[in-house]
């Protein structure tokens, strides 16, 4: 079993790698490989797409690695491999990112990524621990409950078109999408690798998940 943690020069993967390695050891999920190589992604059984920073820059970086996006798309959309997007890696699932300019996402989960609506006294970035409201049961959320906290840091959020794709949200001046999912695809706006026990649990669930 091989899980590819896709490295496209978007942020630090060190913590993510260590968190996935720890939970892979606990769940017997095999090898975690940080990679930019489309061939490794093509061979992987599971694909994780992290991402920090601005939406257009992340999309551009991903497209800059020849064949990397195509390998992810083939694995996820054709072969149905389990996929987890984290932070901007989750936002990439959208139809459109509206940060700075309009940028096409993967369009695997319909919607758009827009600025967190300003409100008096509301600090942006949304930074810190917020309590999840679970909207829909899902194997990757096993053991997570409404009221559990996850660590967020972001200024844009994913507004999903179909409520069936919203697995969990938090309240920050209004509902903010926390977890999305459909078929073999899940994504978290928060950072599981920074969310202590809750994050490690979610990672373990993902490594066991057979959609």
């Amino acid at each position, binding site marked *: 079993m091989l899980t590819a943690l896709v490295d496209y020069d978007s942020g630090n993967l060190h*913590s993510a790698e260590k968190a996935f390695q720890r939970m892979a050891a606990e769940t017997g999920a095999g090898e975690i490989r940080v990679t930019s190589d489309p061939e490794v992604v093509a061979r992987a059984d599971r694909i994780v797409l992290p991402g*920090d*920073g601005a939406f257009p820059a992340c999309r551009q970086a991903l497209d800059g690695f020849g064949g990397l996006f195509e390998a992810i798309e083939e694995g996820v959309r054709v072969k149905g491999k389990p996929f987890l997007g984290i932070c901007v890696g989750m936002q990439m699932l959208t139809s459109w990112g509206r940060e700075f300019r309009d940028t096409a996402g993967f369009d695997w989960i319909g919607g758009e990524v827009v600025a967190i609506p300003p409100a008096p006294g509301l600090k942006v970035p949304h930074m*810190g*621990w917020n309590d999840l409201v679970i909207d829909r049961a899902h194997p990757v959320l096993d053991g997570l409950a409404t009221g559990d906290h996850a*660590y967020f*840091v972001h*200024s844009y959020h994913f507004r999903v078109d179909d409520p069936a794709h919203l697995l969990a949200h938090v309240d920050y001046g209004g509902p903010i999408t926390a977890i999305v999912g459909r078929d073999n695809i899940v994504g978290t706006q928060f950072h599981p690798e920074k969310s202590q026990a809750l994050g490690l649990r979610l990672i373990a669930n993902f490594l066991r998940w057979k959609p």
Partner: protein
Amino acid sequence: MLKTRIIPCLDVADGRVVKGVNFVNLIDAGDPVAAARAYDAAGADELCFLDIHATHENRGTMFDLVTRTAEQCFMPLTVGGGVRSHHDVRALLLAGADKVSFNSAAVANPDVVAEAADRFGSQCIVVAIDAKTVAPGRWEIFTHGGRKPTGIDAVDFARTVTAKGAGEILLTSMDRDGTKAGFNLPLTRAIADAVDIPVIASGGVGTLDHLVEGVTEGHASAVLAASIFHFGTHTIGEAKAHMAAAGIPMRMT
């Protein structure tokens, strides 16, 4: 609802915690990684490492510490001290920091904040502001550990670095730091109300009520403290319970 964060800060020099951390069961009180693990287990919301003797020669020691901490503590880590450019930011992010803090380099040239935020995103760029009261309702930026006045108004500077793309401000009141007399609340409130990014209050915490005041009167999004936690005066859990009892939304673990 977003919770108020409690952030223990470890002052590090040459790879060791300055003054030590006095925890029960902590065998090496001077090991920052051991201290970080203890705070992780205690439910701290984030960690902060401050390299107080940062020099070119000893950077490798800090990178190693950050890497080893990030391998063991799956929680947010901010690192500051001696950060001059986006090159330093990149090196610390790659080592495993989640956020990197500029201090005097941002005072000398606020554009370093913009350069780093453009490259890595505002979410990982913190600006540490060290300010002193110079007249009632007026605060000035000081550098070099509070010794060197700059003539720059702290509130104006906070607005400047926010516009440059800082994602958070770590505000230390230099006239309170180390006094245990509580945060400089008028300063904290003036800055927290002037910018729309989160402000971490720092400097002067001596009691749990001081933590409460930093939020209720200072309008801070997070509170940073060192000695009250390091010396075992209070645990993170006690601090959270006290703040929650005062009506502040906290993440109880």
